């Protein structure tokens, strides 16, 4: 299969959909050149720096028969648009009794690793998860990004595509031709039997690296990538935990009331899954600080394969039998 970077896969999804559907248009303070060149300045609009208004303009255009895409670029720029996101986009369909549909796609880059400090590096998707009325996703591979973007563009609701800064240049296989990945379907990125690691975006790759490492230590790790944050595929997550009896959640965001907390709650509130849990749930997240600039500091703030591996060992340790063997859930 041909390989594309994550960024390329995103642009390809958008270009393909725009070619098919003339109601799609794109707005951004500085849109990608390739899109401007192909579609011209009417359909790919460089905008004033007024993300608040433009987020609302997208809603209004969506209610009038278009399918706008508004690219906020760094997610931190979306906060100037928060009223339009929270009070308008998320509520407009419901509040008016479903009179119209509002098919808007918002794009936002999230995550650290860029040395751009607190106002450009953040993983605030959990803030949006607490809202009712939006769909959200955060893919970990070029293939997933392309497929999810296509689903999102065709979806009749406001959707936010969170895209990982760290993965933009990462290459991966992308199928030829048109394909979609449904919103709300988790992907098991690696099968295993001892511990379930639920990870998103960059941390899927770190979790896979940790899993490879721990294989040598006799620990079999299952890596579940929810891909979509809302609606979250609780079913796949729970059934993985029912198999392994142990859960670690890895998130580039801080833990508090975050994605990681939600996954922990989903698992521990489900009686059947809770009954199989043999170890405390473990969260491996960013430290609870704004993101600092200096590489030494920034790298210390974020979780990585080492912290994930350590966390997995801890979870396994908590239920290690007296004989030193890893206990399966049934023996607990």
């Amino acid at each position: 299969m041909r390989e594309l970077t994550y960024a390329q896969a995103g642009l390809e999804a958008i270009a393909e959909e725009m070619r098919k559907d003339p109601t799609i248009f794109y707005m951004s303070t500085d849109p990608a050149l390739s899109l401007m060149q192909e579609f011209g300045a009417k359909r790919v609009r460089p905008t004033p720096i007024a993300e608040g208004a433009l987020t609302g303009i997208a809603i209004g255009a969506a209610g009038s028969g278009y399918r706008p895409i508004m690219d906020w670029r760094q997610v931190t720029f979306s906060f100037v648009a928060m009223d339009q996101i929270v009070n308008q986009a998320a509520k407009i369909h419901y509040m008016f009794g479903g009179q119209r549909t509002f098919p808007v796609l918002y794009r936002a880059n999230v995550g650290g690793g860029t040395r751009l400090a607190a106002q450009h590096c953040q993983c605030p998707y959990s803030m949006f998860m607490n809202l009712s009325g939006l769909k959200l996703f955060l893919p970990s591979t070029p293939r997933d990004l392309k497929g999810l973007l296509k689903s999102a563009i065709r979806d009749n609701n406001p959707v936010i595509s969170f895209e990982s800064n760290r993965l933009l240049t990462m290459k991966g296989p992308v199928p030829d031709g048109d394909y979609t990945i449904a919103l709300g379907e988790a992907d098991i990125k690696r099968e295993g039997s001892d511990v379930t690691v639920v990870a998103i975006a960059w941390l899927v790759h770190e979790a896979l690296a940790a899993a490879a490492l721990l294989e040598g230590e006799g620990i079999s790790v299952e890596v579940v990538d929810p891909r979509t944050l809302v609606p979250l595929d609780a079913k796949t997550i729970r059934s993985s935990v029912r198999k392994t009896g142990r859960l670690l959640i890895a998130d580039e965001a801080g833990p508090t009331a975050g994605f990681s907390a939600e996954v922990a709650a989903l698992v521990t509130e489900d009686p059947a899954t809770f009954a199989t849990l043999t170890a405390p749930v473990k969260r491996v997240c960013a430290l609870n600080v704004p993101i600092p600039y200096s590489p030494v500091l920034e790298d210390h703030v974020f979780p990585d394969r080492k912290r994930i591996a350590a966390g997995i060992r801890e979870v396994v340790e908590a239920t290690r039998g007296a004989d030193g063997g890893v206990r399966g859930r049934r023996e607990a």
Partner: protein
Amino acid sequence: MAEGTLGSRACVVTAGGVGGFVTARGDGARVSKFPHLPDRKGGTGRAVERPPARGRRVLTSKVGMDGIPVAKLAALAHDENLATEIGSTPVNLSPDEQRAMLRQMQTIRRFEERASSDYHAGKIYGVVHCYIGEEAVAVGVCAALQQGDQIISTHRGHGHCIAKGADLKRMMAELYGRQTGYCKGKGGSMHIADFEIGMLGANGIVAGGISIVTGAGLAAQMDGKGRIAVSFFGDGASNAGPFHECLNIAAAWKLPMVYVCENNMYAAQTAAAETHAMPDVAGRAAGYGIPGIVVDGNDVFAVTQAAARAVARARTGEGPTLIECKTYRWRAHTERIGQPDFRTEEEIEDWKKKDPIVRLLGQLKAQGAMTDADWQAMDGEVLADIEAAVAYAAASPFPKPEHALEDMYAA
């Protein structure tokens, strides 16, 4: 403030630091700084006294908006079309159309009188913001629109709904929280909307709708069918970021937009004079390179003339216009009891004398287009319409609790 003549054409411009009302004819420009500003002592009886504001000059100049010319244009010198005089006479309006405007205005008033009393009777919940006194704005602007044009409203939305042609029954049912309401009971007074007729909703966030309707304007521009979009918003909203962002975008992109500022001189309990250094919001238009018009918002013919010109500009691709309608709300900010109202009885009474409905009625009578008997009959019909709407609402079922889970996501 400078006034001059460019060639033979009358021209008037506002400049920094002054502004005020300026006639379009250049003869005897009158400058007023916050006319009608109360001295903020006294109170209306129901209101408690508010401490005088921050030692800032409180101007009580009583230069009014009566007389002719009643419409004032600011910063329009460059636009011949718009700089012509806007008067208090019906232009291109048949007697039937004029009567229809009167009826619409009276419908708004009677609807809200009933909404208010039903609110106090506990049949309508949450909050109701009455538009009474401002009816000429919604009706005047919407009279200049065509089907397919879209408008957006504010928290004070009944008037815009009715002026755009919404069904009174479904409006009242929404206020009553019933399943047959426009929003199936999910919205209430602050979120009344009818997308079918191009009324994109009342909005509970001040300035929250301006961006959305600007998006409708962008869609209209892309469609290329000559449709336009209108944003209604208050003087309070004119100080919020979206006002600026949208006027700039609409100007830069030449969107087919009309921005209508309903300047009723108060944002809830706060007087515009405390939050605006300039009395005219329309004076901000010049900074974006678009026309700004100040018009007597209690004069439905003046409003509709101003709107018609702005609409024509928008429809022909010339871009947005900002129209400021000077008006007043008769009732408190909301119908909720116990909220302070710092306006004086005197000020309120003064404005009641400028009742836009009485004025229009007088004009129709003067034309011979309406008699007292006609008016009584019309009002009787209007009241019957409201009664029918109430009966419909009251007979409609409440939603079922589980309906709360419907309408979450579109298919």
